[in-house]
């Protein structure tokens, strides 16, 4: 997503990450993480997330009662693409960089057809991922 944020920055697209609840806190593999006890605790985890993944995109922190996250669907890996009119252009329950790249290319090309953008992201060739043809 960092790569997409860089690619579309000069075409008028902002990318934000919203830090939400910990869906697997205290579960196998994530024993060291607890559910959020306060807003400061949540902010601390959000900072840890930014540090762990060296994120450059702005990381927003939802309120402790998850008011906005509940409205958006309460899923841990949601993605929404919102156009300039403030309307939802695309939404998915899972963050898929390939699909988002395709959607953003379509969105910005439709806006300015004289500067078309091609989809470049192809995560099928990311090392470690199982190469599967659909």
């Amino acid at each position, binding site marked *: 997503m960092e790569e997409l*944020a860089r690619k579309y920055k000069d075409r*008028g*697209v*902002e*990318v*934000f*990450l*919203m*830090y*939400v609840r*910990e*869906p*697997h806190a205290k*579960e*196998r*593999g*994530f024993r060291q*993480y607890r559910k959020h006890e306060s807003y400061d605790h949540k*902010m601390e*985890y*959000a900072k*840890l*997330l*930014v540090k762990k993944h060296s994120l450059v995109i*702005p*990381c*927003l*922190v939802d309120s402790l009662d998850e008011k*906005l996250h*509940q*409205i*958006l*669907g*309460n899923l*841990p890996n*949601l*993605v*929404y693409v*919102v*156009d*300039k*009119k*403030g*309307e*939802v*252009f*695309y*939404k*998915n329950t*899972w963050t*898929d960089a390939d*699909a*988002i790249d395709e*959607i*953003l290319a379509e*969105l*910005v090309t439709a806006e300015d057809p004289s500067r078309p953008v091609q989809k470049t992201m192809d995560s099928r060739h990311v090392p470690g991922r*199982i190469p*599967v043809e*659909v």
Partner: protein
Amino acid sequence: MAVERNHYQRIPPGPLFGLWSWRYLDLLKMIRLRLNPRIHGFYTKFPTIPPPGSKFPEVDLETVDGGRINTKALQGRRHFVLLTGALT
């Protein structure tokens, strides 16, 4: 259209009947999910999700570096992508 290109849909059924990891075989968690009325309650909230073409709710939240971002300021000027994420 784009939903069909999801990563999880590209993964073919593998070992463990397509579960791919023994970590998913948490029987107690599965029973909890089935029986807990509060969890069923979450799913009744799904009608609030803004579908494509509808107005996106205003986002006014604090960032980790102490700033504040309001999506109303972007309206008419920039598109934006909002992802949700967590450590676990």
